[in-house]
């Protein structure tokens, strides 16, 4: 790709983009924020694994984990994380109908149905998890 330029192999034309090309326009900023949500997804999983490890190690570790999670900076980080995760969920469900073409009896299932099915599944799973944890 980066072969030196010769007469027969001219230099590639690659215009340099400014590093913050996405700052200037709202839709670009939203695109980059949506891409960044993956970092917060990864942090959520790490946080949940730390919780599960604490549960597995016994009562005192679990209480220590709860205490640490209550520190202001951890709470703030997790509040920010939740905002990004919800952003991920909403954009994911709203994009799903555009990515999925479902046909029933030869007719395309309307987009609102596909998005609706995702939201219904989300509500069901959320209720089930909350019931399992709180019951």
């Amino acid at each position, binding site marked *: 790709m980066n072969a030196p330029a010769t007469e027969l192999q001219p230099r590639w034309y690659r215009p340099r983009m400014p590093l913050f090309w996405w700052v200037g326009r709202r839709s670009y900023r939203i695109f980059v924020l949506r*891409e960044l949500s993956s970092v917060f997804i990864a942090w*959520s999983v790490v946080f949940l694994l730390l919780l599960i490890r604490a549960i597995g190690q016994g009562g005192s570790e679990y209480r220590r984990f*709860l205490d640490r999670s209550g520190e202001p900076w951890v709470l703030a980080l997790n509040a920010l994380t939740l905002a990004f995760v919800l952003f991920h969920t909403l954009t994911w469900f709203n994009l799903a109908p555009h990515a999925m073409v479902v046909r029933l009896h030869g007719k395309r299932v309307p987009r609102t149905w596909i998005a609706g099915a995702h939201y219904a599944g989300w509500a069901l799973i959320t209720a089930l998890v909350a019931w399992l944890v*709180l019951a």
Partner: protein
Amino acid sequence: MTTKRRVEPLLWLLFTSGGLAAAMLIPVLLLLFGLVFPAGWAGAPTEAHLLAVARHPLTRIVLLVVCVLAFFHWAHRFRYTLYDGLQLKHLSKLIIVICYGGALVGSALAGYVLLAVL
């Protein structure tokens, strides 16, 4: 090029299934364990109750699948965030190693925590 073509659809599949799994399950878990219980808005469940729920084979499997898929979701999306957002396409090989390697390490740790520690 051919291996890339064979692997890329699999990575894409992991990315989308991870995105769906994360979208469905992480909000409620993070809301409860990251905010509601630590902030004291509701009493945290006892350790015995959580152990009983978490040690159920079905819970373990679901959690493991969600963790692994979510890590690969991160890897794939973050790879392109670095490519496009920070214009690092020329470091492609290094980024691929860091992202998918990180997902592999994360998956192994998830397996260890869910199958050995818990």
